[in-house]
């Protein structure tokens, strides 16, 4: 049985098509600048993040006794100042949007089926919105006088 091919000239095997092939019906221009702004945002936020993230790591992990100094009191002390509140807020928003847009690119590059793409992005957007809102809430409502 094994040497008998299932396929012949009149009945060829299915060819393997590449993912998301371009056809005549491939959607035409949406006429927005969304991808342009996304691309620019990655570069601009990246530049700002170099300062914010490296500064953050330096303060938290290197200076003044390193990571061992971090405790409730340390956080409470820093968030008493609007400067550090602003710093952390900027870092939270920029890093989250930068990271989320980066992962959106990764999903666009790797996910092949339309449904996979859709659900991965929904998961990503949900997680991003949740983290950004929760973080913002904590920065603004942090109360150093816990019972």
């Amino acid at each position, binding site marked *: 049985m094994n040497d008998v*091919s*299932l*396929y*012949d*000239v009149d009945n*060829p*095997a*299915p*060819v*393997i*098509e*590449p*993912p*998301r*092939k*371009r*056809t*005549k019906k*491939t959607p035409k*221009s*949406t*006429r927005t*600048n*969304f*991808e*342009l702004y*996304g*691309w*620019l945002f990655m570069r601009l936020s990246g530049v700002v993040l170099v300062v914010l993230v490296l500064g953050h790591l330096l303060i938290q992990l290197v200076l003044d006794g390193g990571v061992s100094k971090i405790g409730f009191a340390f956080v409470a002390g820093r968030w008493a100042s609007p400067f550090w509140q602003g710093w952390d807020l900027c870092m939270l928003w920029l890093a989250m949007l930068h990271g989320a847009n980066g992962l959106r*690119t990764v999903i*666009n*590059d*790797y996910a*092949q089926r339309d449904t996979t793409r859709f659900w991965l992005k929904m998961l990503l957007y949900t997680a991003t919105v949740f983290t950004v809102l929760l973080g913002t809430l904590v920065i603004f409502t942090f109360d150093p006088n816990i019972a």
Partner: protein
Amino acid sequence: MSSPTLEKHSAALDAAENTASQMITATFRIRRFNPEVSEEASWQDFQLEIDPKERVLDALHKIKWDQDGTLTFRRSCAHGICGSDAMRINGKNRLACKTLIKDINPQKPITVEAIKGLTVLKDLVVDMEPFFQAYRDVMPFLITNGNEPTRERRQTAEDRERFDDTTKCILCAACTSSCPVFWNDGQYFGPAAIVNAHRFIFDSRDEGGEQRLEILNDKDGVWRCRTTFNCTDACPRGIEVTKAIQEVKRALITRRF
């Protein structure tokens, strides 16, 4: 004896022996696919005596003519002009007719397979239609307004120089099928379409640049390029493909701001 005839004779003999000893035995490991036989693609080895100064295309010809007539591949000009025979040789996209065997280490088996990201129809032949669809979608022809001039459309040498690099494209698809973004998402225009849009966007005689920029500004346009430089490495015409894509990006940004 030192008669000139004898010397000549031995020199000719030497030359003949030299040519004979320059032949080497090379193995070509070719990715075969024939949907009329099997749904699976598989590697097949062919051994042949060949002069290493010959090209991979010559080796494919020898195999097809002397060993296995079913081996299927495209070629037309055989001199790097028509763009028919782009294939993946030792893992890199090249034109078989421009690749010398001595340049790709014939000591080891030389792998030859179809370019990636397009449907393989048989052996090394792929369906180029999606590639040409992306090409058509950037409107690769002169667009002008107003009356036709009675003489030719003049252009300065500098204006011509501006897009000289991208006029060299032969539409072989080596660049597009070397792009990892295109492998996973065929909706991306791909480098070749952008190169051919660049050729008109930066042509001072053309007036459709705005339309083409708008097309490439979309979600499957230039912003999907991740600057991997695979396309520049692959191009057999030496076009700086990634640079051309970058120039289109820059034109879009300077147009907006």
